[in-house]
C-alpha cells in the first residue's frame, strides 16, 4: 500500500533563498562600481566641443570644475540667455571665480594642493571673452593648470 501512497498534494517544495543575499550583494557591488557621483546639477547648457588630441583627466579628487554656458530654459527668464558661469550649484560672476578656486583648494588635502587641475567645461557656443576673463582670474590665484574638457571626436565638427 505504502509503495503507491500518493504524495500529499498542494505541498510545493520551498525554493531555497540562501543565495539571495549573494545576488543582492552582487547587484550592489555592480552599481557601486559603475555609478559616478554627480556632485552638482547643471544649470547651464553644456554641450562640449570635440577635440582629438585629448588627454584623460585622471584622479577626480584633483580636479576643480567650472561650468560655463547659457542658462537652461527654466532659468532663462531669470538669468537671461547670455552665457553664465556655474560654480558648484549656483550661478556666479567672474569675480567670484578666484575665491571659489581658493576655497576649493583649501578643502583638499595639503599634498594635493599644488597639483590641482581646473577643468573648464564650456559650452561650445560660449564666447571667448568670458573664458579670457576666467583665465585671467585663474592666473590671479595661481591656478595655472587648466583642462578644456571636450568630447572625443573630430575637431572640425565644431565649426558647423
Amino acid at each position, binding site marked *: 500500500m505504502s509503495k503507491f501512497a500518493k504524495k500529499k498534494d498542494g505541498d510545493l517544495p520551498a525554493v531555497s533563498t540562501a543565495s539571495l543575499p549573494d545576488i543582492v550583494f552582487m547587484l550592489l557591488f555592480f552599481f557601486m562600481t559603475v555609478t559616478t557621483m554627480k556632485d552638482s546639477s547643471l544649470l547651464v547648457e553644456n554641450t562640449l566641443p570635440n577635440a*582629438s588630441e585629448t588627454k584623460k583627466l585622471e584622479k577626480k579628487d584633483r580636479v576643480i570644475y567650472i561650468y560655463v554656458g547659457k542658462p537652461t530654459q527654466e532659468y532663462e527668464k531669470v538669468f537671461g540667455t547670455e552665457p553664465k558661469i556655474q560654480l558648484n550649484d549656483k550661478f556666479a560672476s567672474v569675480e567670484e571665480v578666484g575665491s571659489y578656486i581658493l576655497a576649493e583648494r583649501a578643502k583638499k588635502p595639503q599634498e594635493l594642493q599644488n597639483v590641482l587641475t581646473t577643468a573648464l567645461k564650456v559650452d561650445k557656443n560660449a564666447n571667448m571673452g568670458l573664458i579670457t576673463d576666467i583665465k585671467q582670474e*585663474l592666473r590671479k590665484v595661481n591656478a595655472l593648470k587648466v583642462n578644456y574638457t571636450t568630447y572625443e571626436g573630430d575637431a572640425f565638427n565644431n565649426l558647423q
Partner: protein
Amino acid sequence: MPRRKGAPEVNAGSMADIAFLLLIFFLVTTTIETDAGLDRMLPPIDPPEDVEVVIKQKNIFTVNINKNGQLLVEDNLMQLRDLRKAAVAFLENNGDGSCNYCKGRKDATSSDNPEKAIISLKNDRETKYATYITVQNELVGAYNELRNREAQRLYGRDFTEMEAEYLNPETPSNVRDDLKDKVKRVQDMFPQKLSEAETTSN
C-alpha cells in the same frame, strides 16, 4: 522503505561562487567614465624675473582668430584645415641648422629651431569657444605629430601612447620610471611653447 519527500532541494551552495564570478567579471570589465580634454598651462601673472626677454619676430608664429572664426596666420588668411601643416612646418623649420632631427626647409625667415619656436595665439572676445578649441586642437596636434614621429624613430611607438601610459596611475612604477625619461626626451625635442599672453617682440 523510506518515504520519498517531494522534489529534492537544489543545492544552493555554489550560488555564492557564481555570484562572485559575476561580480569579478563586472569589476574587471567596467571602466568608470573619465573626462578628457586639452591640457594647457596658463602663464603666471607676474613674470618670474623682470628680465626682458627679446624674441625675434621670425621665431613667433602668430595665430589670430577673429570674431567670425577666420584665421590670420603670420598676417595671411588661412583655412583651419591648413593650420596643422603650417604649424608643423614652422616648428621644424630649423633655420640655424642646430636641430639634427628636423626635416624642415631651413627657411631663414622662419623659426631658428624647435627650442626657440613660439606659437602665439590671440583671439577676439567674440570668438566662439568651439572655434578656439579647434585651433588649440590643431596646434597641440602639430606638436603631437612631430613628437610621434620622433618617438617612432627612437622607440618604435607613438609619443601620445607613451605619455598616456606614463600618466595612467595603473601603470606599474618600474614601467613608469622607464617611460619617464623617454617621454621627457621627446618632449624636450619639441618643447610646447604656446603663448596666449602678449609676447614682446622687436
